[in-house]
Every structure is written in structure tokens, then in C-alpha cells.
């Protein structure tokens, strides 16, 4: 059994999975995990969480773009 990331990003199923995970992260119940009252770096935890997930999505797409241009 070999595990390889070669050609991983070309597979539709990976993107569908990424999409589902992102939708889950951006919605209830996962969205209810960060507290509305706590702060991280001055930002409300909830807002920080949303921005973090957002950045992760951007990072994921950035990695895909970089791999494609290498």
C-alpha cells in the first residue's frame, strides 16, 4: 500500500471534501464552538475563528495554485 499526494489536487473528490469541510467550519454547530465573549488578539473569538477559517481556505487554494505552477 502506498500513500501519495501526487495528483491529489486534480481529483474532484478532494475539492468536494474540502468544500464540505469548509461549509461545516463556517456553519453551525462548529461555528458555535468559539465563544462570543472571549477575545484573541483583541478580536472576539468568534470573529477570529471566522477569519482564521477564511485564511485557511485561502491558504489551501494558494497551495493548489503553487503546486500547479511548479
Amino acid at each position, binding site marked *: 500500500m502506498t500513500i501519495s499526494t501526487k495528483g491529489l489536487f486534480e481529483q474532484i473528490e478532494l*475539492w468536494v471534501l474540502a468544500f464540505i469541510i469548509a461549509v461545516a467550519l463556517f456553519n*453551525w454547530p462548529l*461555528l*458555535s464552538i468559539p465563544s462570543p465573549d472571549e477575545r484573541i488578539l*483583541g*478580536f472576539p473569538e468568534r*470573529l477570529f475563528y471566522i477569519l482564521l477559517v477564511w*485564511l485557511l481556505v*485561502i491558504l489551501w487554494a494558494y497551495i493548489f495554485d503553487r503546486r500547479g505552477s511548479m
Partner: protein
Amino acid sequence: MSAPLFAFALMVSYLLLLSLIAYYADRQRQAGRSIVSNPYVYALSLAVYCTAWTFYGSIGRAATSGLEFLTIYIGPTLAMLLGWVMIRKIVRISKEYRLTSVSDFISFRYGRSYAIGAIVTAVSLMVVIPYVALQLIAISSSIQIISGGESFWGTRLVVAVLLGIFAIIFGARHLDPMERHEGLVAAVAFESIVKLTAFVIAGAYITWGIFGGYSEIIDRVLSTEEFSHLINIDYTSWFSLTLISFFAAFLLPRQFHVMVVENADESHIRKAMWLFPLYLLLINLFVPAIAGAGMILDVPGVKDMFVIEIPYSMGNIPLAALVFIGGASAATAMVLVDSVAVGHMMLNELELPYLMRYIGRGRDLPGLLLNAKRINILLVVVLGYIYSRAVEYQSLVDIGLVSFVAASQMGPAVIGGLYWRKGSREGAIAGMSAGFVLWIYTALVPTVARAGWLSQSILDSGPFGISALIPTNLFGVDLDPWTNSVFWSLFANASLYVLFSLMSTPTPEERVEAEGFVEIFSERRGAIPIERPAIRLGTVDEVESMLARYIGAEKARMLIDADLARLGVSRERVDARHLLDLWDHVERVLTGSLGTSTTRIIVEEQITPRPVAERMGAAPLKFRLEPGKIYFSAEKAYEVFTDQVTHGFEGLCVTRRPPEDVRSRCGLRETPIIWLNPKREGREKQISPANLPLLFLTIKTFVETSRKGVILLDNLEHLVLANEKVIPEEDVLDFVSQLENLIHRTNTRLILADSPDFIGFCGVSEVEPVEVKGLIFTAGPLPSYLLRAFILAIIGGTRSPEAAVDIANSVLSEQSGIAEGASCDPDMRGMGLIEIDTRCKITRRHFFTIIRRICACVSRTDPGFDSVKVLRPLIDKYGFSIYELILNPGTTYAIEEDKPVRCFEIFSELIHAGLDGLCISRYNPESLREKYGISPERVIWLTQKTEEGKFRSVDPTNFPRLSSMISDFLRRAEYPVILMEGIGYLITQSNYETVLRFIQSQRDEVSLRGAVMLVHIDPLSLDTKELHRLEGEMEQLKLLS
């Protein structure tokens, strides 16, 4: 200068700057140095998503609903996550099929449906109008703010007119087959930079210039009890807003345009997948801070305007001006792109299919289309202005959300179309219609009611007091108004789409397009046999002139030249295969320029109906028609036709009656109907009765593609008489002659819904359809046309034409019922006028008798006249045999040759020309069929040994029997020709004298019946005296090469 005028001047200056950028980009493109075809410009152009809603409305939303404003940008972020699999698929499909709008895309997928194209265009128009209104309200409000509260009446109208004019300049300077506007894209990308810069600078100023940082603003807002709820999230509303913004990211007309139509390279999507979400993140970074600052500072006015109100109230006029430019930039981009995109859709899907019916040839069609597009662009902006007047009380976001919910209604049809083969036209129409209706009821009606255009009671207690039907709370489910609208509309939409798709059967065309969409990335897609409808190929010049009609002559010529170069063939050497490829490309080019629906109309004029059988009837077949024959029936033609097509025959109905009448009268659903109509009405396939070549080609292609076909023509009399004095008689003759020949040599049956009088039959029973032979000799004025054509050919082929005219008229006048009577002006004689009664009926035999007579008389006055040479072209053209001109009825001819070859060839030629033939031969009938195409039914085999019942045969010594068979034949036949071969065999089986007596008696009978007999003689098998005696009974036939 007053403050409002200063604001206008600023705006106009900025628009002029954008025009310069657009102009520069277009020039660079023409020079082959596109500045737009790079991934960064592409990603920036997607930021047209961020309009005045983002610039102003998000702040207002954040100040009232907290974090919920983020859903509008999370949706597109999620959509870009599927960029490589879904958006790239949409782009690939659109490039492949030259689809230049979302309505084109959806309509093409579902069988190129005009109805779907129209629905999507209407939805898109409804989407865009509130959005344009939002931009106009935002710009006019910001003008008022930076003018210190000054404004003048008509600010908004002036803004609308300005934007409309610039939209025309940017998007409607010319017709582009692929609807690409590099100048527009460059301007939009520049605007994206401007608005992001302005917003970030304003946000940074407010956050760190006025306050001590982000944390301070957040702390002060959340510590205030009045605002502490802003950090909470309504998860249901959050989800529904994310969902509709996901769809909006690629289904809003402007988004589809920049994302798909303007995409220059699929690989740019990779960059856009992270750049666009990053842009959305950056432009929203300071929204909570600006909203919080506005609340803390208690800035007066609407919350939407905090971003410009705060710097202005702080005295920072330059920043306020920058923010104004940023906001105007955001709004302008949206109006420019959306008005161009929707204007294009309106033209292609709503207007052009109707314009096509009424545009005559010779009109400047490209100019007309361009002007219509410009009017549409202005109309979109004007409608947006009117809407803004009606709803200006609302928040910008609420106005925008109405559009988002509407745009989402295209979601199920698009997603289903991309991934589900079974998605059908019926499903898409049902789903989108239901979704659209529920959107109107749950989103638009509340908006209109709050504006006072409808009674408020509908929102309080529902229509007619039915509380379950309150638009904002259907069935009392207690969802927030937006979730209520999203849920019910998308639920009904998706459910009906799936249900109706499962219940309906896609047409072959839909199946092909579904396969093309779903498997666009699949390598095996090329192996799938795609059934092409047969088209009239025509010539390269015809293709080019058709294309030129819609995109201009020069562009058409360039495109065709480029295509021929691609195919590696010159205009002179192009063949059917190349023409098919050309047509395919032309269809795609036209789709790009005119849209799917209109292209379908144009191309369908070139496409012939596909043979299709109706559902089988329960009753047995009532009328048995033989293949290759023509029948007529005045009263029962439709009944006969319906009987055939409901028993497995593929039918084609060519009628002068409206097709819907025929369908309802005969219960036809699948059978193609061609309406013989000189005016273009409705959507049915129509051919003008004067366009006989096209009609013939249409019928011909149908015949060639059907297995066992039946054609109903209602009726030939209408076709012939409608064209009297309209088109040349020769064209009518050609049509009828070619039609007859076509039917006779194929498996198709032709039914004419004509009266016996027209066809030339008397006292005919209407119980059964009657077979017709030789239409050209009996139908209406056709015999006179034919006579005239032949006589004119004779006149043209002689050195004494005046004499020939006199001879012709003289011969005609001797024939009763052929020459025109008292109506003939005697002074016209000798002036080339041939006087033929158009009502004359003439048999084939009589026709050739007249022609022979005229030729014989002309030969006396002009010894050099060669009737065979002069008339051969016409004889070949109408499928006659040249021997019909030579062979005199009532005559027996000798054909002398060693082996009987030419005699069989001549006999075969005569029977295939339509004569009734009987062949008496020593040869096996099967071998005669193989070698000369003579059917065994026409052969009497001279043999003593034969299988019972297989072939007609007679003992060579049984002359009485042979005589009797010949007499039977002569009695039944209309235009008989007999071939007697095997004289030598008869002589050896009996004796010479008996055979000679037999020949003499048959010669007499042939003479009596006006038949023709050809007798093969092998001169070497007889001695001189025997040969001489036989030859004395016959005439020598001069064989032609």
C-alpha cells in the same frame, strides 16, 4: 463651483479616466498585446462582486445585525473552493459551445430552449434592477454627503444617465461574436484596486486615526448593552445567506460575465481561487471597525453611509472625496458590467427571436442589433432608477438580498445541468418557474407592500386573511424573512426540477447536450457518437453570406477565411465534409453573437426534419401503400397519412394549413410539419411556396434519412398555382420532376392532397388513394409548361426560329385541347409566342408524338437541326429516355447485334423512364435483373424447363400462349414497349416460317395498340433471305451512343 457640481465633476473625471484605460486596453488587444489576459487582472475583475453594497451596505448591516454581513462574502469564498472543478467546467463548456451569457448557458443545456432562455433573462433582469437601484441610491446619497447635505433634484437621474452612456461606450461599441470586452475588464480591474485602496485607507484612518485601534472599537461597542447582541449569530439566517451568496458568486449576470465569458485562460482560475477570497477578506477587514466607530460616534444619518460620513464629519475632505470615488467606483463597475450583460441577454433571448421574423434581407442587421443592445443597456439603467424611487426607504443590503434570492433560482438548473444527465428541459422550466413565483411572493411582494404599492395587510394577516400565506412567514414556520424566502423558493425549485426531470423524456438533442455538459472533461467524450441533424450544405459563399447577415460582411469573410485555412482547404476545393465543419463553426459563432435561441431559429432553416414515427395505433393498417409510388386523395389524404404514421412509418407533412390545426386534427405529436407559408409567423418550421429548391432539398434529406417514410403534400395545386407568374415555369417543372424521380427510386410513399381535376383523373372513387404516374404530364398546367420548355428548346436549337414557332403553333393547333383558342391574338403569331392552353392534359405518348412531329417539320426547314442533340439535356433533366423521342408508337424496330446487349440496355432505360415494359427473352430473369435492372415481373422466359411459380415462362413452341400473354399486356399497359429477344431460339425450336408469322401478327397488334416493339436479331444466325424478310417487317433502330 457648488459642492454637488464638484462631486459630479469628480465622478465624470473618474469615468473619463476609466474610459481611457478601457480604450488603451482595447488598442493593446488589437495590437496583440492584451493587458487583460493575465490571472491577476482576472482575479481583480471578479471583485466586481463588491459593489456599493460592500462599500456602504455591509457597514449598515454590521451596525444592525452584527457579523451576519460576512455571509455575503463567505458564500463566494466557498464557491471559489470549487473553482477548479465547477467554475472551470462552466468556463470550458461556455468556450466549447460559444455561450456568452448565463441564459445562453442554461438554455443550451436544456435543448436550446427558447422558453428557458426567456425565463432566465427575465429572472436576470429582475435580479439586476434592484441592484442597479442600490448603486444609484448609494451614489446619490454619497454625493449629498460630500456636498454638505446640498443636492439638487434629479441627482440620481443624472447619475443614471451618465452610467448608461458610459455603459454603452464600454460595452456596445461593436458586436463581438464572443462578447468579450477587454476594455471593460481592464476598467473593472482598475476599479477593484481603487475601491479596495479607498476602503482600506478609510478603515485604517478610522481605526487608528480616530480611535486607538481595532480592540478599542470592539471593546467599546460590545460593552454597550445596546450593541452587545451584535456578536450573536442567527445560524439559520447565516446558512441561508451563505447559500444564496454562494449561488450569486457565479450566477449573477455580471459575475458570470467576468468569470466565464471574459475568461481568457482556464489556468487563471487557479490564481483567482485564492486571490479573490483574499480580496474579499481585505475589503471586509475594517467593516466591523467602521460600523462600530459610527455607532460610538453616534454619526447622524443612515448607518450605510458611515464610511463617508465619518471622515467628512471629521473635516477630512480629501479622504471623504477618496471614499466617494471608491464608492462610485464600486457602483459604476456593477452598473457597467450588469447592464451590458443583461442588455446582451435581452437582445438574444427576448427580442431577436421575434426580430428575426420581420427583418427583411438588405437591412443593416449588425447595425440594428447594436442599436437594440444599446437601447437595452439604457433600459436596464432606467428601470433601476425607477425601482430606486420606489424603494429608497430600505437599507441597501435589503435591496440587494432581493436580487440574491432571485439569482439563486438558477442554481438547481445549473448544478443539475453540470452533473446530472437526467436533468431535462421540463424539469428546469418547472423548477425555475416555481422558484421565481415564490421569490416574487416572498421577497418582492413584501418590498412592494412596504413601499406602499400594495396593502400592508398582506404582510400582517396574509392575502384574504389567510395567515398561513403571509409572504414573510409562509405556513407559520417562523423563519426570518430571508430564510423564509430562500427556503421555500429553493425547496420548490429543486423538488420540481428533480421530479419533472424524472417524469420527462429528454429529446435526442437534449441527451447530446447533457452528455456534452456532464462529460466535458472526459477523454472518451470524443468517441460518443453525436447525432447531427442533416443540413442543407450549400456552398461556402452561401455560408459566408448567411453569417455576414448577422455579424457584418468583413467579419464573416475573415472568419470563413480563417476557418478554411484551419481546414487546409481553398474555397474552390471545399467538399461536403469541410462544409459540415464550417456550418458547425458558424453555428457556434452565431451563438456567441446572437444567443442560443436565435441561432437555433437561423440554423433550423438549414436543418431538415428528422424522420420520426408516431406512437403505434391500436387499429390495423387501413391503407396499404407501396413504396416508391405516388398517390392522391382529395378527401382522405390526411386520414391516409395518419394511418401510415401510426403504423410505423416515418412521416413528413408539408402543408399549407397552420401546423397546430394539422396536429389537433390528426393527433400528430412527433411528425415534423413544414408549413408552406410566404410570411413568417410563429415558431413552426416554414418554407415559402416560392422556395421550391429548399422545399425539395428538405424533402430529399428526409427521404434519404428515413427507413420507410411517407410524405403528405397539401397540396401540389397550391404550390403550382401560387407560383404562377411568380417563379419560372422551369423551376416548378424541376421541382415536380425531381420529386417524382426521388419517390420512385426510394422506399418512400408520397400522398398528394389534390383533387382529381388537378391531377387529371376523372370519375375516381374516393374509397382508396389512387396511384399517380407521370405527374408532369397530368397535373394542372405542368404539361403546358413542359411542352413550352421543349418547344422553346427546339426553337433555340434551330437556325430558323421564326419558322419553328409557326411550325410549333401549327402542330399544336392540330391537337385538340392543347392550343389556346379564341384568347390567342393572331398578331402575336410569329413573334415567338407559343400558344398552349394551360389546362391541357396530355399523355406521355402524345407528348412525344407532338415533339417528334415538330422536330420532323423543323428538320425539313433546317436540315442541320439535330433533335437528339438539342433535346437531350431536357430529356435527361426530366428523367425521360432519349429513345422516347426516337421511337414511334405503333412501330416495330429491329436491333441487330451479335449479342443482345444494347437491346436490353435500351429496354431497361425505357422502363426506368416510366414506360410499361414486357421482355420476352431466352435469358434467366434473375440474370436480367442483375445485369440490366429488369424486374423478373416484366419478363417472360422462353424455356422448356422451369420451376413452377418462380418466374413467368412459356414453352418456345407454344406461340398461342405467348400471343395471349402479349395481348394481355397490351390491353393493360398505358405506354407499352415490348422487347423480343431469342428469335434464333424460337426458330430452332420450331421453324422460321412459324416465327415469321408470329412476328407479323405481333407487329399488327403492336401497330393497333400504338405500342413499340423492339426485336433483337443476330444477323449471323440467319441467312440473307431470312434476314431480309424479317427486316422487311420492321424498321431499323438507329442506336445512340
